[in-house]
């Protein structure tokens, strides 16, 4: 027994030593003065929180490695689930241990005043500041990449069914025609569903704009929307009938992308970020980017990520240096090429290696889109930062409940209005 006790205590000591060792070795930057970035010392790694980098061909990881090679400053790209990102960073901030950098799509009010002013860096590198988030004349979140919503089709299925699809901007289909087309495809082939759309408010908004909706906007002292929104949402619910669209994608989080990749879905409303993944990973059938259908106006929805640096990480200067480096023409072009991003700097010329024709369609879509798409999103994202309380995807959440027969579409619209009013107007 004594022997056993001795062994236990020995293990305890060994692990405690290992424990404290690993802690001091990888602490996330609370030592006040970080190391000189140029010195090439093994110093503290800068942490760069991103989500979805693996899917996007690890473009940021590649760039971070390149940066380390050139400057000796180590950057660790941390891939966290999209849903966990804001929560995670907010928690780290409450603990006063924010990461050095993050690539994000949403904010939390708790970040207010803790984001670095990146105006100079953006200006120096011709970053399109109007696409970023500016608070009190400080550009706190410049755009890192631009994405746009778009439609993919399974070309094999369309050909097998003998259904035409628009090949130029002159013969773009209406939603009516599009739905008829995919219905014919499902009828004439063994396709399981007509289309899938990512479970995302961002994609849904493009659908709404195309139907003449103006989205949700402030009018007087409350948020409201136009009638077309409700009508379009009604149509969306009707499309989710488990024949044209599978309900499970929205209500139960089934993965739209892998359903399309399985080859049994005729069309997929997603966005430009999928191109590089599809080009590499879809081998069983031919896919193609096509012009999105519309009803009232042509519209895509612009999206993409913002790049932020955090005050209080202890590595502010190094973070800024890296951001500056990343936006430099040559590096940025490499990043955009690798990740399949549409550029956000005015002078970048990106030559896409994979599926360049798909990118052209997106450029056309962006050029033809109703201006509402770019304004509204930015405005709402900015609200998340400057309001008392951040709303996540209210519209998506309310619509999920509507799709799940928990409430009527009208009720969902009312809920969105009242929640936005409550959170964004004091």
């Amino acid at each position, binding site marked *: 027994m004594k022997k056993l006790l001795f062994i236990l205590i020995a293990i*305890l000591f060994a692990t405690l030593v*290992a*424990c404290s060792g690993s*802690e001091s070795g990888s602490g*996330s930057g609370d030592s006040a003065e970080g190391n000189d970035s140029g010195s090439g010392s093994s110093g503290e790694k800068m942490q760069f929180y991103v*989500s*979805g980098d693996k899917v996007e061909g690890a473009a940021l990881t590649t760039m971070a490695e390149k940066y380390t090679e050139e400057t000796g400053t180590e950057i660790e790209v941390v891939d966290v689930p999209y849903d966990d990102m804001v929560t995670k960073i907010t928690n780290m901030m409450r603990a006063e241990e924010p990461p050095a950098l993050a690539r994000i799509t949403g904010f939390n009010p708790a970040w207010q005043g803790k984001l670095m002013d990146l105006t100079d860096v953006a200006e120096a590198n011709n970053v399109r500041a109007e696409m970023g988030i500016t608070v009190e004349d400080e550009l706190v979140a410049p755009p890192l990449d631009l994405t746009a919503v778009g439609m993919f089709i399974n070309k094999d299925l369309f050909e097998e069914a003998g259904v035409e699809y628009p090949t130029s901007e002159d013969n773009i289909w209406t939603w009516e025609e599009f739905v008829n087309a995919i219905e014919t495809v499902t009828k004439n082939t063994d396709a399981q569903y007509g289309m899938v759309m990512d479970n995302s408010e961002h994609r849904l908004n493009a659908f709404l704009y195309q139907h003449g909706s103006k989205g949700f906007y402030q009018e007087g002292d409350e948020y409201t929307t136009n009638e077309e929104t409700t009508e379009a949402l009604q149509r969306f619910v009707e499309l989710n009938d488990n024949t044209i669209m599978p309900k499970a994608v929205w209500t139960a989080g089934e*993965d739209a992308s892998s359903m399309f990749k399985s080859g049994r879905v005729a069309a997929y409303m997603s966005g430009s970020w999928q191109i590089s993944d599809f080009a590499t990973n879809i081998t069983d059938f031919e896919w193609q980017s096509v012009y999105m259908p519309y009803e009232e106006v042509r519209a895509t929805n612009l999206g993409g990520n913002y790049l932020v640096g955090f005050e209080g990480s202890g590595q502010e200067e190094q973070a800024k240096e890296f951001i500056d480096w990343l936006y430099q023409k040559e590096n940025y072009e490499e990043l955009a090429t690798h990740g399949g991003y549409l550029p956000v700097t005015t002078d970048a010329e990106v030559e896409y290696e994979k599926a360049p024709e798909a990118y052209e369609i997106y450029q056309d879509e962006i050029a033809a889109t109703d201006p509402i798409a770019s304004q509204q999103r930015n405005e709402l994202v900015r609200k998340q930062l400057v309001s008392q309380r951040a709303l996540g995807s209210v519209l998506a959440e309310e619509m999920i409940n509507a799709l799940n027969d928990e409430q009527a579409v009208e009720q969902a619209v009312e809920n969105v209005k009242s929640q936005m009013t409550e959170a964004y107007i004091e």
Partner: protein
Amino acid sequence: MNSKLNDKFATTMLTAALFIIALMYLFPIVWLLLSSLKPGNELFSYPLKIFPDNPTLDGYAYSWQTMEFIKYFINTLIVAVVTTVLTVLASASCGFALAKYNYKWLNAFLICMLATTMLPTEVIMNPTFSVILNLNLYDSLAGLVIPSISTATGIFMFRQYFMTVPNDLLESARIDGANEGKIFFQLMLPIAKPVAITLAIFSFQWRWNDYIWPLIVLSDPNKYTVQIALRSIVGADNIDWVLLLSSSIISLVPMIIIFIVFQRYIMDTGATSGIKG
């Protein structure tokens, strides 16, 4: 004769029923294992095949490369082992005190410990997070170890056990002049070895599979435990099933090894019945 025939019939039927149910329990795991051996394009091919056409370990190689399992295993192991050792010591001493001393405040404390089973961390996550921040335990493995040391179950297991130890044993040791600490470490702890081992195994499993604490305490991926690493795959927008399936299997391996080594103690129902609170 007739009854013997009946017996035989009953035995066959019941054994068959038992194994049909057992197979139903086993199947989800087997299915996960079979699927993890399929290459990515076969995983979603239609119609589904039960056995992989081209069994491959590529999925495992892929997840071993993508996920830093060694790191996660080491982190989880540190947390599980340190917590387990401390839990056994703390629970044994506390259980001993609760069983062998008779003070009013000890009884009050016993009731307090009972209350903790009712209000587990899951229920008060938000204030607990503030406490973690205040104690400077955020994003450290110590933040996983320290709060998990105290467990009402462990304390009750030891308390029940020590209640069955005759007081005479203690008294005679006291007469021999041993102090209480010596009595506990040299006399009581050794005789409670079966309880200690059972609790150690349970504690190890709790910590290995723990999710809530690492979820709220950790942020640095270098400190991730296995479960949180898995979460980073499950939570993704586009779940990478090839990665998820093989990673899930890999995450099971250490527990399976523990089970094989300690099977005797785990399945010894005499010991587990001590868990009765």
